[in-house]
């Protein structure tokens, strides 16, 4: 990751969402983007120019635009029509974003578009986040990496974030993933955990 004065930045044309620029780089705000927050907490997270990324929960393309600055291609899946519209605008300027209108609980509907990817990144506000992630493992190349941004509040607000987190880890392990590292994204995001895994 490129850092300027301790801030995470990305190379690329600015003006996607009024982000600040430093030394010609786009500042990637950890308070807005969970991936940036994760990079602040973990130096070893990296994106490279040869990477193919499957991004679930692309929303309006803010984080996607930064990821696209680093990698070869991003397959950006978003379900809701409103943010999808913004995502298309972002994809107009960045030719390595493949915007996909799809429901992440139904990967079979967009599977024909996808190729093998090196990184599976998921940030969706859904109850069954572990289940969604496991459904997408067929798209991951051997030795590929998985980053799950767990929104514990979306899973079940009746249980504590810690309970939801523990259960998710268990399900991912049962599903054949090796959990490498986990972080709570404090102070940037509350009740959000980042879970970094690899495929066995």
């Amino acid at each position: 990751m490129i850092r300027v004065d301790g801030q995470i930045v990305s190379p690329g044309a600015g003006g996607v969402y009024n982000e600040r620029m430093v030394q010609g780089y786009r500042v990637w705000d950890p308070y807005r983007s969970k991936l940036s927050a994760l990079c602040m907490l973990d130096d070893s997270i990296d994106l490279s120019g040869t990477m193919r990324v499957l991004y679930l929960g692309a929303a309006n393309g803010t984080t996607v635009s930064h990821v696209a600055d680093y990698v070869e291609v991003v397959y950006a899946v978003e379900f809701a029509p409103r943010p999808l519209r913004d995502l298309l605008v972002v994809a107009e300027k960045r030719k390595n974003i493949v915007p996909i209108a799809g429901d992440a609980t139904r990967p079979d509907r967009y599977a024909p578009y996808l190729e093998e990817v090196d990184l599976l990144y998921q940030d969706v506000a859904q109850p069954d986040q572990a289940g969604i992630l496991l459904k997408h493992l067929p798209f991951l190349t051997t030795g590929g990496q998985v980053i799950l941004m767990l929104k514990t509040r979306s899973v079940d607000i009746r249980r504590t974030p810690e309970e939801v987190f523990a259960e998710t880890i268990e399900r991912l392990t049962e599903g054949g993933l090796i959990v490498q590292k986990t972080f709570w994204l404090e102070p940037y995001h509350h009740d959000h955990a980042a879970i970094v895994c690899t495929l066995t």
Partner: protein
Amino acid sequence: MEYWCLSVDDRGDLLPVEGAPLDLLARVRSIATDMRTFRPLTADMIQKSGLFSDRSEYIRRLREVTTLQAREEIRDAVSGKDAELLQMVRMLDQMDEVINLLSERLVEWYQVTNPAFSQKGKQGSVKRILPKILRSRSPPLRGMAKEMEGLMEARTALAAEVSRLAGRVIPNTSELVGGLVAARIMARAGGLEKLARMPGSSVQVIGAEAALFSHIRQGSPSPKHGIIFQHRRVHNAPREVRGRVARVLAAKLAIGARIDFFRGEPDPEFLASAQAMIDSMVGGSL
């Protein structure tokens, strides 16, 4: 195995598929993928198909198809008949907020220009105070009051329009609780399709989310009714049966919403039986 731009048959032979983006999109929509056996495209397969001169052409052509699909889905989402009704309801509710806010300020201002005026006993009736304010000695205050009058007229007109449109777009739910309340419930659910897919129990507490979540979290009493309370048969019902009326009415609304969404026409038979059932409950005989 079928992919957007090629297919691989049982013997492992690769068959390229040519076509305009629109044809490829139709093809993708017709593919039934079984995720248990699915293997994604590989760079090798893409290259062997001979369809693309290089990697950037592959991405460019793929983007044409997926962008087309995304645009279609956005268009479908906003083209529903309920989309405009939804916006109108939200506008109406926001106008209410604005009118309340501004009228409080107007009354405060009027009090300053007319110290003899007291609001005692006149609570909540800006309509009755407004004519007075319009005759105030202060020209800027009169001007504001005039604007306020216009705003209230616009609000009334919009409410009538919401009622009328609801009668056409969601005829069954409108018949049960009136167009305004039906439209509010639909808007809060996030659209007609969402409402049609909702269980009656959710319809019952739509608009009482704060109470519902405090019930789930802290075990406080569960809400008996949300927006549905605005309907006279719920708020006029005796306390003891109010929850029951709300429950039955919500269940019938859920059915009505499904008829509205899938058929879009009033169903007199359903309406008659639903009305009879709700009315019998208000009578206390159930």
